[in-house]
C-alpha cells in the first residue's frame, strides 16, 4: 500500500519566508503581510517560541514526576502555533484541539490554566470568554463545526471578528471537518481552517489520511487554501494575516495547511519508537523552527549573548511559575462533581446529590463504626 510522505514531493509550493538555514527568502505574494515585522518583533517571536518549548518541557517533566496524568507535547510545532496565534486580534475566537498550548499562550492564558485538565482538576482549564478561546477539544475535528457556527454568528452580527479552528492532519478524515468546510463555504463564514499537518496521527502517517496534499482538498469545497512551511514562523504569520484579512472583508473562509512535524510523542503515554524511523526525526530536526529563526537573528546581529540570556531567563521564570501553579493547584471539592451539569435545577440529579451527601455524612457521623462494618461487608460481597 503506498503511504507516501506527501511533504517532500510538493516542497516547492510551500510558502516559505525563512529557509531552514535561516536565510530570509523574498516572496512577492507574502512579504507585504509581514513588512511591519521589525527586529524587535522578530525577537519577540523568537522569545515566544523558546517560552512555549520551555512550557512543553516543563509540563512533560511534571508528567514524568507524577504531577500530571498526561501531557500532549507540541515540540516541533512552535512556529505554526506562534506565527498564527500572534496574527490574531483579541476579538477573534479560537477553537482548537488539545495540542495548541502555544496558541493558548498567545491568547494570554493563565499558565496554571494550561494544566488543570491534565492534572485531572477540571474538564476545561479556562473560561472561554476570558481569552476568546474554547477549551481544548478532544473529539477529533468536532471543533471545526463550532468555529464555523461561531463565524456564522459573527456574520449575522455584522462584526468583523474571525473564528480560527486548529486541527491536525488526522482530523481531516473526520466527517465533521468536511461538513464544516461545506457549511463555511455555503454561508461564506469568516473562519480559518488551520491544519497543522505534523505528519502523524498517533501512529498513523499522513499518507494514510490523504494521497494528495491536504491543502488541495479545500478548493473542492470552494475554499481557497495555502500550503505553508509550518516550521517558518514568519510565513505562518503572513498566511494567517492574509486569511484573516480575507475573512474580515467578506471573503469567507480560508484553509491553511501548515506542514510541520510532531517531534515528540502524541502524548506522554505514547512511544513513537514503535512506529517511526529515527532518521525521519533527524531530517526534521534539521528544519527546527526555533533554530532557523535563531540563525536569521544571529545573521542580523539580533541574538547577542545578552538577548539570549534574557530570553532564557524569561522562559525559566515562566517554567517556574508553571510548576508552582501546578503543585499549588487547589483540589476540587467533592460536590463539584454535580455542579454545572445543568443550568437549571434537575430533579433526578438533585436527588442523587442529596443521597450522596447523606452517604458522605453517614461516614462522618457517630455511626462511623457501623458504617465501617457495613462498608467492609459491601467490599466482601
Amino acid at each position, binding site marked *: 500500500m503506498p503511504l507516501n510522505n506527501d511533504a517532500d514531493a510538493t516542497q516547492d509550493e510551500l510558502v516559505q519566508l525563512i529557509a531552514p538555514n535561516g536565510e530570509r527568502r523574498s516572496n512577492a505574494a507574502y512579504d507585504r503581510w509581514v513588512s511591519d515585522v521589525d527586529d524587535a518583533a522578530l525577537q519577540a517571536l523568537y522569545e515566544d517560541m523558546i517560552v512555549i518549548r520551555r512550557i512543553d518541557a516543563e509540563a512533560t517533566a511534571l508528567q514524568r514526576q507524577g504531577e500530571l496524568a498526561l501531557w500532549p507535547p507540541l515540540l516541533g510545532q512552535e512556529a505554526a502555533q506562534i506565527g498564527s496565534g500572534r496574527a490574531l486580534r483579541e476579538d477573534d*475566537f479560537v*477553537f482548537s484541539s488539545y495540542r495548541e498550548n502555544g496558541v493558548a499562550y498567545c491568547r494570554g492564558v493563565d499558565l496554571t490554566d494550561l494544566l488543570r485538565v491534565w492534572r485531572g482538576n*477540571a*474538564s*476545561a482549564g479556562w*473560561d*472561554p*470568554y476570558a481569552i476568546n478561546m*474554547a*477549551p481544548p477539544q478532544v*473529539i477529533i475535528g*468536532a471543533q*471545526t*463545526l*463550532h*468555529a*464555523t*457556527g*461561531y*463565524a*456564522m*454568528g*459573527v456574520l*449575522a*452580527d455584522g462584526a468583523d471578528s474571525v*473564528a480560527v479552528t486548529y486541527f491536525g492532519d488526522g482530523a481531516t478524515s473526520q*466527517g*465533521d471537518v468536511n*461538513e*464544516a468546510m*461545506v*457549511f463555511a463555504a*455555503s454561508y461564506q463564514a469568516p473562519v480559518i481552517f488551520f491544519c497543522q499537518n505534523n505528519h502523524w496521527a498517533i501512529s498513523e502517517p499522513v499518507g494514510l489520511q490523504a494521497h494528495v496534499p491536504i491543502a488541495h482538498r479545500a478548493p473542492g469545497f470552494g475554499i481557497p487554501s495555502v500550503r505553508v512551511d509550518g516550521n517558518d514562523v514568519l510565513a505562518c504569520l503572513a498566511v494567517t494575516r492574509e486569511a484573516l484579512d480575507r475573512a474580515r472583508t467578506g471573503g469567507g473562509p480560508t484553509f491553511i495547511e501548515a506542514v510541520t512535524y510532531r517531534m515528540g510523542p502524541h502524548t506522554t503515554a505514547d512511544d513513537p519508537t514503535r512506529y517511526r524511523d529515527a532518521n525521519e526525526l533527524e531530517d526534521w530536526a534539521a528544519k527546527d523552527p526555533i533554530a532557523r529563526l535563531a540563525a536569521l537573528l544571529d545573521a542580523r546581529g539580533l541574538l547577542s549573548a545578552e538577548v539570549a540570556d534574557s530570553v532564557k531567563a524569561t522562559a525559566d521564570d515562566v517554567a517556574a511559575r508553571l510548576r508552582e501553579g501546578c503543585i499549588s493547584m487547589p483540589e476540587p471539592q467533592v460536590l463539584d462533581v454535580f*455542579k*454545572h*451539569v*445543568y*443550568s*437549571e435545577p*434537575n*430533579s*433526578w*440529579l438533585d436527588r442523587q446529590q442529596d443521597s450522596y451527601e447523606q452517604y458522605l455524612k453517614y461516614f462522618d457521623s457517630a455511626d462511623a463504626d457501623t458504617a465501617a462494618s457495613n462498608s467492609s461487608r459491601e467490599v466482601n460481597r
Partner: protein
Amino acid sequence: MSTMTFGRAINAGLRRAMENDPKVVLMGEDIGKLGGVFRITDGLQKDFGSHRVLDTPLAESGIMGTAVGLAYRGYRPVVEIQFDGFIYPAFDQIVCQVAKLHYRTQGAVKVPLTIRVPFGGGIGSPEHHSESPEAYFTHTSGLRVVSVSNPQDAFVMIQQAIASDDPVLYFEPKRRYHVKGEVDEGVDLGATSMNDAKVVTEGSDVTLVTYGPLVPTAQNAAIAASDDGISIEVIDLRSLAPIDFATVEKSVRKTGRLIITHEAAQSGGLGAEIAASITERCFYHLEHAPVRVTGFDIPYPYSKLEFHHLPDLDRILDGVDRALGRSNSLSSRSGLEG
C-alpha cells in the same frame, strides 16, 4: 382560545419565541421556503428572513455542530431534525458537545439549544422515518428531553424549551400533527413548567403512564375500561428527562398498579426506568409488578406490520388486565405475569 392543529400550534410557538428574542434562529433541512417536510416552520422564513430561518446543507452533524458554535456566540438555535431516524449522524455532537459543554466549562458556556425531532410511527413510511430514539437521549446527562401530546402543550412547551438555558430535545409525535385542539395563546408561560407531568385522566384502579403519541390512545383506553368498571388514571409525562416521579409516585400510592406504555422498544427503555424508580420509591404500595406495554425489540418494521409493533388500545387494555390480575392474553402461562 383558538382551534388549531398540533403542527400549527408548534408553528405559532416558534413564531412567538422568535418575536420575543432576536437571538432565536431556526436551522434545518428544507425549513425555509418549503416550511419543512411537515410544514411546521411554514411562513417563518418569509416573515423573519433567511438570516433567522436557515436552510442548511444536508449534514446533521454539521447542523448540530454549527448550532453549538452559534450558541457560543450568544444565539439560541432551534434545530429541526427532519425525521427521528436521521438524528444519528448528529449523535456525537449532541452527546459529546451539546450535553457536556456547560459541565466542561463549569457553566461558562451555555448551550440553550432546542432540538426538534418529529418521532414515532403510524404514518406508513419506509425505514428510518418512524423511530422512537428518546431513550438514547434520556440516558445522556446534560440534556433535557420532553415530548408533547396536544396542541396546547405543543405551543407552550416549545417556547419553554427555547427559553431554557439547557439543551432540550423536543419530541413531536408526527402522526398527531393534524390533530386539532384548543390553544390559548395568551397563556402565561411561567405558570407551568415543562418538567411537570400531568394527570390527564383521573382514576383509582391503575396508573397508566405514557407520553407523546400514545397519550390519546391511553385516554381512549381509560374510556373503554370504564365500561368494564375499571378506573384508569392516565399520566402524560411531558418531560422524559428528568421524569416527574413525584407525580407518578403519588398516583401509584393511590392505585397500587403501574403500567407504562411507549412506542420505543422495551429493553433498556424508559419503561424500565420508570418501573425501577417507582418500585424503589413505593414498593410496599404496589399490588402487582409494573407492566410494560411497548414496541418490540426489533428494528422499526415495514409499514404493513407496524400496527402490530405499536401499542394500541387493545394491547394497553390487555396490560391493564394483567396488572389487575384479570383474565388476559398471558393468563394461561405459569409464572407471575398473569
